[in-house]
């Protein structure tokens, strides 16, 4: 028996057709109405961007909420007038590499915080929480000045290079992610890895063979969160990547609509959809982990 049947199951009604309908309306009908409204709110910008991407004229002024035609001219323009593929490859490189390395570094640290007791452990955990209140981009001035001199010694990690920006991103690898992971690691019974140790496993074997397979959901969720935030990162990238060829897709699209906002809107829309595509795909594959991963880490601290 659900909450709603308790509320609306009065015995005085005769169950005629009319009352059944009104019963349905009070119990479920209004919920469908609410969901239609919310879905419309969620969908209209998406519809607009799809319609603009297909719009044969490709301008903002001619774009409508409903598609008025279907043409791939905008996509063709985007591929031929801009270094789109380079931008796209850059974005994917940053998002994938950062997600993969961050997951590894975070999981290593979370394993130590969850399973071992050592001096400075509590300070380290609270320190991580506080330091991530000073997000990296607040130190953007310092990072800029720092890399001005690093670039003189090591041009391969200076401005306009992939490796330099990747290093900066990895500086934020241990953060709230480590907390999220530690929360999940704590839920794995200790007996499992302790018995493996009894059988003579090294700590590395316990970590790679026993722990990691058991915590896949949280690895997936952290990977997804890092992937999303890297693809959408703008501030550090805009300071770091100034060369047109070195830009990420986000920066490139910004430039496309900055130079000629009205005329390039169709091209921008195609780019926006393509930029969202990897996230949508990853999201689709990971969605069964998402709710579990987001809440379990949070509840357990």
């Amino acid at each position: 028996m659900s909450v709603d049947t308790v509320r609306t199951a009065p015995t005085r009604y005769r169950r005629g057709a009319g009352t059944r309908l009104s019963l349905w309306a009070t119990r479920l009908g209004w919920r469908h109405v609410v969901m239609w409204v919310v879905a419309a709110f969620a969908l209209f910008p998406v519809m607009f961007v799809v319609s603009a991407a297909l719009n044969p004229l490709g301008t903002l002024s001619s774009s409508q909420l409903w598609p008025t035609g279907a043409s791939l001219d905008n996509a063709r323009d985007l591929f031929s007038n801009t270094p789109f593929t380079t931008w796209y490859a850059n974005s994917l490189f940053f998002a994938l590499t950062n997600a993969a390395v961050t997951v590894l570094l975070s999981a290593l640290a979370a394993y130590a915080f969850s399973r071992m007791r050592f001096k400075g452990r509590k300070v380290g955990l609270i320190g991580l929480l506080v330091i991530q209140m000073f997000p990296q981009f607040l130190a953007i001035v310092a990072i800029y000045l720092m890399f001005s001199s690093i670039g003189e010694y090591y041009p391969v990690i200076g401005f306009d290079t992939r490796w330099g920006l990747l290093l900066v991103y990895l500086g934020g690898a241990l953060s709230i992610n480590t907390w999220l992971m530690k929360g999940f690691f704590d839920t794995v019974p200790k007996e499992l890895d302790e018995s493996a140790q009894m059988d003579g496993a090294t700590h590395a074997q316990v970590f790679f063979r026993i722990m990691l397979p058991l915590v896949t959901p949280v690895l997936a969720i952290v990977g997804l969160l890092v992937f999303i935030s890297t693809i959408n990162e703008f501030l550090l990238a805009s300071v770091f990547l100034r060369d047109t060829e070195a830009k990420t897709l986000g920066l490139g699209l910004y430039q496309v609509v900055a130079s000629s906002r009205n005329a390039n809107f169709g091209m921008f829309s195609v780019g926006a959809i393509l930029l969202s595509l990897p996230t949508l795909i990853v999201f689709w594959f990971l969605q069964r982990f998402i709710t579990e991963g987001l809440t379990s880490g949070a509840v357990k601290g």
Partner: protein
Amino acid sequence: MPGGRFAREGSLVGQVVKIGLLGLFTALGVWAVLPLYIGGNWLGIGLVVAVVGLVYYVYLSKRTVPAKYLVPGVLFLMVFQIFPVLYTMSTSVTNMSDGHRGSKEQAISAVESLSVTRTADSEEYALTVAAVGDPETGELVFLLTDAEGDTQVGDADGLSELAGATVEDSGKVTDAFGYTILTPAEVNERSGELEEFAVPTGSGAGIRSSGLSTAYEGRALRVYDESCDCVTDTETGDVYTADAERGAFYNDEGQRLPQGWQVNVGADNFARFLFDPAFASSFFSILLWNIVFAVAVTGLVFVVGLAVALTLHVPKMRGKVFYRVLVVLPYAMSSLAMYLLWRDMFNTDFGVINQVLGLRIDWFGSVWGARAAVILANVWLGYPYMFLVATGALQAIPRELGQAAQIDGANPWQAFRQVTLPLLMVAMTPILVATFAFNFNNFNAVWLLTRGGPLFSDNSTAGATDLLITYTYRLAFNEATAQYGYAAALSVMIFLIVSVISVTSLWRSKALKEVD
């Protein structure tokens, strides 16, 4: 002792991997030391050696098991997060800005060499303009060939020998190891910088360019005199005295030379935006809007997200999965692109919002229009996350609790308010705090939509939708004169505000006390 329980020797594969990784790391260390050695940076070499030593110690010792897992992440954290934070803090107490970047010696040599003028006995050089590294951004240098055909390289610090350069008959250098020779187009692009570039050659002389391929050595009109710590302009007779507190040379009328140096100004930057009326008014109005923005967005996404989660939280609803996919869609779209999309949807003339609603509102032109637009776009992007979290939290609360309350005579609202919500908040509070902290510094949310605008009519630096972070960014990178010191002070202030708010609320929600 941690680690004691584990087997003492790893497998053969483990050992091989370990040796391989350590070897790779050592190679990396050697690679890192080489340029530092060439540049004579012994502090840097010491640091690299210390890090390599630490890594060896941690991974070869049997007693440092937790460190083996923490070192990789912590090294990145130290170098690219903690060090920049400390650097930001030290910059925040200086006057660092364009015109105050280097030491006093550098400022003096810049003052002198920039006032160089040609004299009758000036020596001429064949000039090639080059850069260190990237032709667009690398430091400018002059590759010079004198009358005897000797080649030299000149940068902002002075002249040095250039060996092994390829020189053509006209005396122009066509190739030199370590320098990128600029094409005429690239020189043209950096002509502004070139005008302000001169190579000091000591005792009030310097080399400047005249055109693209010749340079001359001349005498400085402005000469520094150590005995009075002042610069004298030999043409006008003006005397500019060094002001150690402000880091620049001033004459009696209070005019300063444009080249200054970096000095410690203590808490001046902080005092400026707290007490200087002009700066304080923009700081406090931005801070107020910043808080309103973060609270409004966090509150609205929470209410909308929770309401949607509750609407779907019934066992017998059809199309649940379908609704879920639609409702979560904004979260799976790229927020960066969607901000730019929303910006164009709010366009006054062609925007789809005015079009569909039949309005002609100048959204980004008016203070409250822009603020409403920024909040609306962020609610659209943010509520799906709250919906996901709330759905998860609701599933963890047994339905029987709410039913029991209703059997005891509570109406549905009371049952939700008194029973379900408090349980829900236990799980949701840390998420709400994180969301607040995230939105407090949500750079993209404002920069990509309005760039902080519209600017207030009485204040040209602060906009109506500016957050502290966008204001900081504009101060540091977008104004005519970059005020790094002041921007760094703002960063430190933002950090203090966010961490005080977050840590107190986390403390009160007991999330921090449960660390074990």
